Every structure is written in structure tokens, then in C-alpha cells.
């Protein structure tokens, strides 16, 4: 049973408690109002939190595409050549075929002179037939015939049709070039080849080479099968910069 004293004791904390509660409520209201907070009447279009500025621009650190791996089977020229050209290509890309016919021989002259290293990367953006051709070219490379096989796939500056990139057709081409067809088939189907092709593809896509051909010459991008003089000029500048 409550006594009068008990009742007074309760009242002694009731008043300050009410005051504190009201004060907290009011202070909170004032703070929200002062901050322009959303509260119950504020905006429903809050600004996104401030986002830090990017620290890098992707697509400009293209020299990362250069591998300089002496074991790279899809390369030509000295590992330590003063200039490196990385080619992102696809065996179903007609512009890649044209570039291989018109400009690659010019670039190979610089390879022969020891001034340029070419590193080939198949990005296979055109799909399974491209990826199959890439595996075939790698299998040819394992028999030391990458560039011959590559040239045959782009013979006359034209790409092959999808039917001409079937497994049978690709093996037949290897045989025409004097390669061991059994070894070729085994290498073409091997896990190691698949891994290498996937690695090259991801390298290209990771650098933004989503359309072909794309090139990195001396660390600078060249997009599309531009005329040979464009490549010659870029090579000259890169060589001069390296010397």
C-alpha cells in the first residue's frame, strides 16, 4: 500500500524527468531544424554522400598490357626491345585481318631490326569460333608456328568464315602448314592452352579492349585498324622517347 511519503518521492523524480524529456525533445527538434534535416517535412531527394574523387583514369595505364615474358609463345622480337606493340585482336574481326595484311609486315621489319617487340592478345569478342581459333593458334605456337598459322587464318587480309573456324578446319590448316596434327589437336584441347587464352582475353578486356583491333604502342593506345603511317609515326615517336 502506498503512503504519502512514497507518493512525494515519486513526484520528486517525475518533474525533472518530464523536464529532461521535454528538453531532449526540443533540443532534438532545434538541431534537426537547424541542420535542415529531413525530419517529417524535409526533402525526399537527399544528396548522395560526398564521393571521393577517383585516383586514376583507367585506360591510360596501357603499358601494363606489356608482358615481356621470354616464354610468351605469342610474341615476336627481343624481350628488351626499346618499343613494345601489344595487339588486341579477334580472328573473326575483318579489320584485324586487314591490319595483319597491310601493317603487320611493316611492324615486323622493326622486330627484325631489334627495335620492336610484338605481343599478341586474342580477346575473342566475337564468340566461340574466335576463341576456338585462338586456341588453335596457340597450339600452333607450341610447335613454333604461331605467326605462320596467324597469317594463314588472315590469308589475303580476310577473315575466315565461322565454318572455316571449325575444329576440323583448324586442324586441317595445321596439317597444311606441316604441323603434327595429333599434337596440335591435343594442345588445342589442353587445359593449359585454355588457361592461357583466357588469361590473354581477360588482360585485353581488363584494359578496355572491347572492340578490335586495339593496340598499345609504346604505352599509347591506337584504336582501330588505322593506316600504316599512323603506326609508323607512333613507333618512331616511341623509339625516340626510349632512346
Amino acid at each position, binding site marked *: 500500500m502506498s503512503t504519502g511519503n512514497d507518493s512525494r518521492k515519486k*513526484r520528486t523524480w517525475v*518533474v525533472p524527468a*518530464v*523536464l529532461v524529456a*521535454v*528538453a531532449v525533445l*526540443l*533540443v532534438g527538434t*532545434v538541431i*534537426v*531544424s*537547424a*541542420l*535542415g*534535416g*529531413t*525530419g*517529417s*517535412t*524535409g*526533402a*525526399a*531527394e*537527399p*544528396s*548522395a554522400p*560526398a*564521393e*571521393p*574523387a*577517383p*585516383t*586514376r*583514369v*583507367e*585506360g*591510360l595505364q596501357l603499358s601494363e598490357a606489356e608482358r615481356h615474358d621470354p616464354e610468351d609463345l605469342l610474341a615476336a622480337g627481343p624481350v628488351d626491345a626499346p618499343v613494345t606493340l601489344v595487339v588486341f585482336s579477334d580472328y573473326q574481326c575483318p579489320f584485324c585481318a586487314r591490319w595483319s595484311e597491310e601493317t603487320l609486315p611493316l611492324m615486323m621489319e622493326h622486330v627484325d631490326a631489334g627495335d620492336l617487340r610484338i605481343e599478341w592478345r586474342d580477346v575473342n569478342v566475337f564468340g566461340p569460333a574466335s576463341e576456338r581459333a585462338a586456341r588453335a593458334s596457340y597450339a600452333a605456337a607450341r610447335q613454333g608456328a604461331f605467326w605462320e598459322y596467324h597469317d594463314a587464318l588472315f590469308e589475303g587480309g580476310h577473315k575466315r568464315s565461322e565454318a572455316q573456324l571449325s575444329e576440323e578446319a583448324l586442324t586441317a590448316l595445321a596439317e597444311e602448314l606441316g604441323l603434327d596434327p595429333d599434337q596440335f589437336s591435343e594442345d588445342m584441347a589442353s587445359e593449359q592452352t585454355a588457361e592461357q587464352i583466357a588469361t590473354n582475353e581477360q588482360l585485353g*578486356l581488363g*584494359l*578496355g*579492349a*572491347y*572492340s578490335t583491333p*586495339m593496340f598499345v604502342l609504346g604505352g599509347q*593506345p591506337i*584504336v*582501330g585498324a588505322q593506316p600504316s603511317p599512323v603506326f609508323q609515326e607512333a613507333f618512331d615517336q616511341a623509339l625516340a622517347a626510349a632512346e
Partner: protein
Amino acid sequence: MSRGPHILAILTAVLVALTGCAGAAPEPVRDPHPADGPLPVVDTSALRPPTPFTGLRMVDPGWSVAPQYADGVFLAPAAREDLQRFTAVDVQGEVRWVAERPADSTGFAVTADADGRALAVLTDVHRPAGVASDKVTATAYELATGDPVWGPVEVPGPHAGPGLVFARSSDDSARTSGTRTVLDPTTGRVLASESGTSGQRVLGEYHGTVLVTDDRTLTALNATGGQELWQIPLAEHGRVRTAIHPSGAAAAAEGLALLEAEHSPGLLIDLRKGSILNETARDAAVDPGTGTVVVLDEAGLHATRDGQHLWSLPVTDDTRLAALGGALVYLREGGAVRVHNVITGEVADAYTPAMAGTILVPARITADGAAVFTEGPRHLLATLVPEPGASG
């Protein structure tokens, strides 16, 4: 002696004291009026904008939130001296008008009336004496001039969006199942409102098109008059949960609406055709120059123009669509920015390699080449005016 009056006196004193501590808020000048002077020009020597925007005069309107845009004019508020100061700025960097509201009236929307005239709709909060809840009103002004168009009209609560959707806040004790109301942009009259009985839900207003939904049908209404434009059955997608704001804001993806449904977390709708463009979209934008639509979804980034697929490319989970304009799409991935040509998909060389400074990524690009950049808390506007001494 009774303690009641004593307690009341103490409470009154506390109220007065606290109110006094907060200081009396200045009375806002609500009607649009000219600015006091030109906007401050930003020193860009330590900034690194994309090449298309170098050499342009950049101004800082002081906006505290991302601006909305239509017909050559940007609008956003800034918190100033216990007020919200809305500033309408054109692509030349000239202030068209300013208007003020109380500090907690930050709601606003840019939309268009039946004639295609761009409107700015600002909300206002009133606290009538003796009334428990606030009264919220909306007033429309011509965006380009600040001339009044309609209002103030009472709305059920703060601006909720997208577009002219207003709603009671969720903590409102009087909340019922139907709380969202959408206004006719041309008249300010209520066009549609949710009710507890019909099951109709208001999703958003997109520059003259209103989307409503029941459990199984998505319906588009003409915002002027409310005529039905089209319907999409939602049998495969379940109930639409909400309308999502793409990062590029509604007008950046004009003609598109992004919705979240039970079985399609990113339902991208073509508002003109009434068709579903994508069912897993995370974001989308339209290049005002080329008409190219770029969609970011679970499979990657895709571009289409006139309904024809242009290209697709894989992206990482943290890739975001920052802005689209000038035939370039700007992507952010963690601490990096990457730019692609929207026609070819090729990586574009959009930043001058030799340039130093804070890398700026556009948040909004207009058809004529002005842009908004967010730099820390600032929302800077790259105008169409060349910097002094710049060529061109």
C-alpha cells in the same frame, strides 16, 4: 498548493529558453527574385576535368544537393542562414532566379507541363498555431523565369518523388495505407492518390507521365487529364515494390523509369512505348546527343540505339554509371574512372594524361555540353562559357 501550475510554468520557461537558444529563423523571401550578384568562378588549376570540359568556365552555385535540370536550367537548394535558398542557373552560368524557403522545406522537383514548359515545384512547410502536424504546400514556377504557374496547393506531406509525388512521412501517426499523391504538373490538382481500398499505388511522375500500379498491372497515365497511355501486365514480375532513382537522376534518363519488382529487381520501362527494356537493370541513362541508351545490369553494360544493340561489355560488381553525354559514358569502379565511346564501346581517351589535379567525373551532362561535377560536398557547374584566355 497544487503542483500542476508550477510544473506548467517550469515547462513554459524551458520552452522559451530553448526557443531563445535556437534563435529566431529569418523569414524567407519565398517569391522568386533576382540574385544579388554573379556566381563565384571556380579556380580549376588544381582540378582535372575530362578533356571536353577543360577550358570552360566553372561556377559554384553553392548547391547542397545534386541539381535537377530541364531546358537549359539547373535548380537546387543551398542551406544558408537557417534557410533553404533555391538557385536556378542556366548553362551559361547565369542565375535566373532565387527563392527561399524555411530550413526544412528542401523538397523540390523539376517537371514539365502539358505544353512541355519546364517547371520548378518547391514545397513549403507551415506550422499553424495549435495544430499538431505541419501543413505542406507546393508551388510551381516557370523554371526559366521564376514566374508563378500554380499554387500554393496543399499536399499530404513532403516531396517524395519521383516527380510530383508527395507523401506523408512514415512516422506520421495518422498514416494510412494510402498516402502517396501525385499532382497534375499543368494545374497542380491531384491527379491520383493512393487509397486503402483500391490497392492502387502511385510510383512516380516522369515529366508528364504518371505510373501507378496495383498488384498485377503497371499503368501509365497522362499527367495532364489522367488518360491511360498503356498497361503492362506484371504476371512474371510480381508486385512492383518501388520506383528507383537512377544515379543520373530522372531527367538524365528521360523517357525511362527504373522500378523494383518482386521478381525483377531492376525493371527498366520505356515510358513512351510501354515496354520492358530490361529486368535486371541497376542503372540507365540516355545520351541526349546520340539518343543512345546505356543500361547497366547484372550481365554488364549495354548500349542500344533506335532499338538496335550496339555493344556490350563486362563490368565489375562495383561499376557505376556516373554520367552519359557527348557520346561518352563515364564509369566509376572503386577508385577509378573509365570512359567509353557510346557508339563503338571503345575505351575513350577522355582525360589529358599530362594533366594533374583532382580528377573530376561528370554527374550530369546536358545535350549542349554543360555539366555538373561533384567535388567533395560541392556541386560545380561547367558552363558553356570559355574560361578567360581559353581558346574556342
